[in-house]
C-alpha cells in the first residue's frame, strides 16, 4: 500500500467548507433561539454614572437587558490563566460587564437578549448610559510615567507584571569590543480570522446541562473556565467547536461575551445566540504584539556574537487576557538569542495596563517579536563592524554538531542544521548578482535590497512540567483515543482542536498509513467536550507535534492488542507476528495472514480471544512531550523601494523551513505562505492606531491594511528535514514559522535598500509615507 504521509493529499475538510456545508457556531439554529447584542463603551476610560435600560426593556420582542450591576455576585470575573513566576502579576478583576468603570473602547456595558437580531440591535440604541469621561492612556511607556491615568487600583503605575530572566551579562558587556544598541517599536496588530467570534448556548433543564457552541481553539479550556466563572459543575457543561474559521490565537482567550451568552441561556431557559460583527471584532477581540524594546548586542570586532540584553515594555491592554501575560514573557524572553551561539543573555519585561483592547497570542505569539529583534540586531551589528550580514550569520549560527544546544535561558534546542537551510536558500537566489545589480541600480537612483532571516523558534507546546514551571495554569499534553469499529472503520478522538489547519487530513494520513487502511476509513473527531475526554487545543504549532504524537502512540497500542489477537488466530506467539500494510503474518511467512479487518471483527465477536485479552479494539494515549520542538530555517526577501512615493514592493521571496518530516507538503506550503504574508503584514502594512482619546482609528478594513494576495510575488518554498529526536513522528511544527521568519527578512531587506541613505533603522510598519519621509530627510540634510 502506498504511503500517504509525505504526499499532498487533498484536504478532506474542504469539500464541506467551500460548498457552504460547514457547521460554524453561527450556523447552529435552535428552536426558540433568542439573539444577544452587546452594548460597548464608546469611551476609552470613563466612569459609569448611570445606565437606564427601561426604554430598551419595554420594546416589544426584547426578552431581557443585563447590566454589570445585575450580574454582580451571580457571575464571576474572567481570570488570566498564565501567571509567570516571580512577576508580581496583578490579577485585576475583569467583570463580564463593566460595573463602575469602562477601560477601553469596546468594553462591554450591557447585553440585550431579544426575539430577533434586529430588535436586539435596535434596543442597544435605547439604552441610555451616562458617562463621566476620564483621561485615557494607550501607550505603555506613557502609562508607566508619573501622573498617567491609573486603570486599576491594585496596579500602581499601571504595571501588570515585571519579569526578568537570564544569566549575568555585565562582565561580557563591559569587556565587549562592540556593543550595538537599538530601540524597537513592534506595533499592535489586529488578528482577523475570516469567521468572527460567536457563541450559541442552550440549557436543558431536564438534565441541568448547558451546551455552548463556541468559536474556540481550545474547547476543554473554555469548559473549565466557564465552569469556574459561572459556577456550573464541569460535567454539566459541554463546549462544542465543530468548524471554526481560523483563530490565529484570537480564539484562545475566554471572553466576557461567551460567559454572558452562556449565563443568559440558563437564566432565560432559552437558547441564546451572539455573533460579533467585524467592527466589534476590531475593538473587542484580542490584539497582538505591541512592544517597545531596548536591545543591546555584544560582540567582537571580527564578528563573534557574545551576548544580548533586552528590556521590553509590553502593552497588555485594559485587562489580562487568558494567555496574555505569557506571550511577552515566556514565549518571548527565553529565545531572544535566536539561532546564534551566545554565552550570556537576559530579558526584562514590563507588562503594562493601558486603555486599549487586551492583547493575547497572535500567530507566533512572542517568538515573532524575539526573532524580529535578534535578526534586526544581527544586521545592525554586521553594519557596525563592516561585515556582510550573511558572514556574521555563518559565523554565529549554531552548527549541526552542537545539538542539543542549551541556550543562556536554559532552553535545550532539540536538533538542527541551520547552515544547511541557509545553503539551500542561497541556491534559490543569486546573491552576488543581486549585489551587483543593486549597485548598478543605485547609481540610477533606484533602490533594491535583500534581507535575511535565519530563525529558530520554540513550539510544539509543550512539556506540562515546564508549563507549570512557567506559570501556565494548565497542562500541555494531548490526548487521543483511537476506536476501531467492528467493521474496521476508525474514529480518532483528539484533544487538539484544528480550526482551519487541515488536521482532519494530516491526522488521517498518519492513521491510515500506520494501520494500512484507506484514508476514507478514518475519521477525525475533535472540538466537542462530550465526545473527546480531554484536551488542550490547537495553538503554539502543537497540533501535529503533540496531538499527532498522541494519536500515533494510541494507534501503536491498538496494533499491539491486534497483534496478540492475530497471533492467537495464526497460532503463533505475538513476538513472531509482523504487521505490514494492514496485514498480520508470521515473520517470513506470507501465505498465512490475518488482515486488520479480520482481526478487528474477531476482537468484537470475542468468540475466541487469547487469554487475558478483553473484547473490542480501542486505545487511548495521553502524550506529554519531553521538550519543545525547534523548527528553523532561512528566509530571504528581495524588495524594491519607489524613491518618489516610498512604496515598498516585495519582488522575490524565498523560504527554506525545517519542520522535520513533512506530513503533507501541500498543507505545509499553505501554512508557510499564509504565515509569510501575515508576517509581511506587520513589516509593511498593518498597525492598530489609537488617537489621543483612545479611539481606535483603524477600526475597519477601510483603514487597517490586511495584506492582499496582489501585494506579493509567488513565494518560493523548500525544506530541509531534521527530525526532532523526541517525538515519535519527528515533526517540529509549521503553523507559525512563516510569520516568525518573514517580518525581519522584509524589514532587513528594506533597510538594506535604504543603506545608501545612511538610515539605520525604521520602525514598522514601513508604510510608504514613513519610508519616503526618511529618504526625504536625508536628502534635505545633504
Amino acid at each position, binding site marked *: 500500500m502506498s504511503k500517504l504521509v509525505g504526499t499532498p493529499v487533498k484536504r478532506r475538510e474542504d469539500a464541506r467548507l467551500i460548498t457552504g456545508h460547514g457547521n460554524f457556531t453561527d450556523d447552529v439554529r435552535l428552536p426558540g433561539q433568542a439573539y444577544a447584542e452587546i452594548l460597548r463603551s464608546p469611551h476609552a476610560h470613563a466612569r459609569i454614572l448611570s445606565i437606564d435600560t427601561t426604554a430598551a426593556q419595554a420594546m416589544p420582542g426584547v426578552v431581557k437587558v443585563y447590566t454589570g450591576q445585575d450580574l454582580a455576585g451571580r457571575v464571576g470575573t474572567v481570570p488570566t490563566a498564565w501567571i509567570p513566576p516571580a512577576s508580581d502579576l496583578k490579577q485585576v478583576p475583569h467583570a463580564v460587564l463593566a460595573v463602575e468603570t469602562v477601560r477601553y473602547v469596546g468594553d462591554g456595558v450591557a447585553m440585550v437578549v431579544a426575539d430577533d*437580531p*434586529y430588535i436586539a*440591535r*435596535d434596543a442597544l*440604541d435605547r439604552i441610555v448610559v451616562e458617562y463621566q469621561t476620564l483621561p485615557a492612556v494607550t501607550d505603555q511607556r506613557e502609562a508607566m510615567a508619573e501622573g498617567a491615568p491609573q486603570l486599576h487600583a491594585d496596579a500602581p503605575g499601571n504595571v501588570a507584571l515585571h519579569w526578568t530572566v537570564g544569566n549575568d551579562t555585565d562582565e561580557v558587556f563591559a569587556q565587549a569590543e562592540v556593543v550595538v544598541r537599538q530601540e524597537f517599536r513592534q506595533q499592535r496588530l489586529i488578528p482577523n480570522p475570516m469567521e468572527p467570534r460567536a457563541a450559541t448556548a442552550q440549557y436543558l433543564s431536564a438534565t441541568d446541562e448547558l451546551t455552548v457552541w463556541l468559536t474556540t481553539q481550545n474547547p476543554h479550556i473554555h469548559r473549565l473556565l466557564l465552569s469556574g466563572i459561572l459556577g456550573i459543575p464541569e460535567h454539566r457543561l459541554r463546549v462544542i467547536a465543530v468548524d471554526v474559521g481560523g483563530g490565529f490565537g484570537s480564539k484562545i482567550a475566554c471572553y466576557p461575551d461567551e460567559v454572558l451568552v452562556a449565563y443568559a441561556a440558563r437564566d432565560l431557559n432559552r437558547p441564546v445566540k451572539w455573533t460579533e*460583527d*467585524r*467592527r466589534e471584532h476590531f475593538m473587542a477581540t484580542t490584539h497582538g504584539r505591541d512592544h517597545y524594546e531596548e536591545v543591546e548586542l555584544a560582540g567582537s570586532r571580527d564578528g563573534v556574537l557574545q551576548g544580548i540584553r533586552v528590556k521590553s515594555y509590553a502593552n497588555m491592554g485594559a485587562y489580562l487576557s487568558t494567555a496574555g501575560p505569557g506571550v511577552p514573557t515566556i514565549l518571548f524572553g527565553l529565545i531572544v538569542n535566536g539561532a546564534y551561539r551566545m554565552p550570556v543573555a537576559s530579558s526584562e519585561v514590563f507588562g503594562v495596563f493601558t486603555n486599549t483592547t487586551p492583547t493575547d497570542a497572535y500567530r507566533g505569539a512572542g517568538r515573532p517579536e524575539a526573532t524580529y529583534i535578534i535578526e534586526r540586531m544581527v544586521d545592525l551589528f554586521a553594519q557596525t563592524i563592516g561585515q556582510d550580514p550573511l558572514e556574521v550569520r555563518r559565523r554565529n549560527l549554531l552548527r549541526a554538531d552542537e545539538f542539543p544546544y542549551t541556550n543562556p535561558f536554559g532552553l535545550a534546542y532539540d536538533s538542527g542544521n541551520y547552515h544547511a537551510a541557509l545553503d539551500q536558500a542561497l541556491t534559490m537566489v543569486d546573491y552576488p548578482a543581486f549585489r551587483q545589480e543593486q549597485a548598478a541600480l543605485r547609481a540610477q537612483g533606484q533602490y533594491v535590497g535583500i534581507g535575511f532571516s535565519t530563525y529558530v523558534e520554540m513550539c510544539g507546546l509543550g512539556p506540562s512540567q515546564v508549563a507549570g514551571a512557567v506559570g501556565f495554569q494548565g497542562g500541555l499534553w494531548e490526548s487521543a483515543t483511537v476506536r476501531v469499529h467492528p467493521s474496521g472503520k476508525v474514529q480518532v478522538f483528539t484533544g487538539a482542536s484544528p480550526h482551519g489547519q487541515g488536521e482532519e487530513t494530516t491526522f488521517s494520513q498518519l492513521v491510515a498509513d500506520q494501520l494500512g487502511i484507506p484514508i476514507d476509513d478514518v475519521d477525525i473527531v475533535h472540538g466537542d467536550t462530550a465526545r473527546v475526554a480531554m484536551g488542550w487545543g490547537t495553538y503554539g504549532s502543537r497540533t501535529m507535534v503533540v496531538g499527532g504524537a498522541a494519536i500515533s502512540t494510541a494507534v501503536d497500542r491498538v496494533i499491539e492488542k491486534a497483534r496478540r489477537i492475530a497471533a492467537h488466530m495464526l497460532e503463533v506467539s505475538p513476538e513472531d507476528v509482523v504487521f505490514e500494510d494492514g496485514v498480520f503474518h508470521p515473520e517470513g511467512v506470507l501465505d498465512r495472514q490475518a488482515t486488520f479487518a479480520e482481526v478487528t471483527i474477531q476482537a468484537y465477536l470475542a468468540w475466541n480471544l487469547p487469554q487475558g485479552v478483553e473484547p473490542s479494539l480501542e486505545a487511548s494515549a495521553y502524550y506529554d512531550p519531553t521538550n519543545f520542538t525547534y523548527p528553523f530555517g532561512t528566509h530571504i526577501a528581495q524588495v524594491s523601494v519607489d524613491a*518618489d*512615493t516610498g512604496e515598498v514592493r516585495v519582488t522575490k521571496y524565498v523560504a527554506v523551513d525545517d519542520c522535520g518530516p513533512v506530513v503533507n507538503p501541500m498543507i505545509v506550503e499553505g501554512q508557510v505562505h499564509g504565515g509569510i504574508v501575515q508576517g509581511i503584514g506587520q513589516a509593511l*502594512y498593518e498597525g492598530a*492606531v489609537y*488617537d489621543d482619546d483612545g479611539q481606535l*482609528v*483603524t477600526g475597519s*478594513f*477601510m*483603514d*487597517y*491594511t*490586511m495584506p*492582499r494576495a496582489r*501585494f506579493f510575488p509567488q513565494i518560493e518554498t523548500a525544506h530541509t528535514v531534521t527530525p526532532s529526536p523526541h517525538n515519535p513522528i519527528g515533526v517540529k511544527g509549521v503553523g507559525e514559522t512563516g510569520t516568525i521568519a518573514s517580518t525581519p527578512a522584509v524589514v532587513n531587506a528594506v533597510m538594506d535598500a535604504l543603506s545608501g541613505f545612511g538610515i539605520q533603522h525604521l520602525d514598522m510598519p514601513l508604510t*510608504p*509615507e514613513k519610508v*519616503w*519621509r526618511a529618504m526625504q530627510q536625508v536628502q534635505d540634510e545633504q
Partner: protein
Amino acid sequence: MIPASFSYRRAESLDDALRWLAEDPQGSKLVAGGHSLLPLMKMRLAAPRRLIDIARVSELIGIREQSGAIVIGAGTVHRDLAGHPDVRQKLPALAEAAGKIGDLQVRNRGTIGGSLSHADPSADLPAALMALAATVDIAGPAGERSLAVEEMMVAPLVTGLAPDEVLVRVRVPIPAAGSRSVYLKHPHPASGYALAGVAVAVTLEPAGAVTAARVAVTGAGVVPFRATDAETVLIGDRLTPARIAEAAKAAAAAGEFAGDALMSAEYRRQLCRVYVERAISALVD
C-alpha cells in the same frame, strides 16, 4: 451590522422616483447599486425612513452617442462603462477609472449616478469626468437642470443635488481629433479607493503641441479638484519632462490637502505631484 428599520419601494420609472421622493424628501433615499448607501446604513451613519430603488429604471440605464457627446444613464453600472467600446475608444480615462473601481462585484452593482451623488472624495469617476469636461443632467419637481461635474462635488459627501432631485444622466463631450486621456490610480492599500487618482486629457497637434489640457485629481485632496494651474503649464509647445514636472508641481501647489491620523497632508501632496507627473508622462510618446 444591522441597519435601522426602513421601508422599501422599487420605482419602475423616473416619474415614480420623483413622485415618491417629493412625498418625503428628507426621510427618503434613492438606492441604486447600494454599495455606498448600504454600508452607511449598516453602520447607522445613515438611517433613511424609506428607500426608493431605482436600480431597474430602464430609462436611467445605458450608454449612447448623441449630438457630439457620449450620454451615460445614471443607473449604468461601472462594469458596463468600463467595457463599452465607444467609451474605451473615445474616453479612455473614463473606461480606465471605471475599470479600477473596487472589485468585479462592486463594478457589477455600483453606478455612475450613485458614485457622483455619494461624492466620496476618494472615488475614481469624478477625476475622469472632470478631465473630460462632463456635465450631469438633474431632474427635480421643477424640471431638469445641468451642472458641471466640478459643481456636483461640493465637499466630502456633499453634492449640488437637492434631496428631491434625481441625477438622470452624465454627458461627456467627445474630445476633438488628436485627443488623448488617461487615468492613473494609486489605490489605498486597505480600502482600494484612490489615494491619488489622476486623470489627464490633452489635445495634441500632429507635431505634439498641446492645444487643450485638463487635469483632475481625486483621493489626494480634500475633494476631487481640477488642477487648472497645471493645465496652463501644459498648453503650448511639445511637452518636455521639465514642463511635465512643472505642471505636476503646479497641481500639487493648487490642491487642498488634509492630514489625518494615518497620513499627513504633506505626503498626500507628494502623491499628487508624483501621480500627476506619471499620468502626463503616460500620454506623451
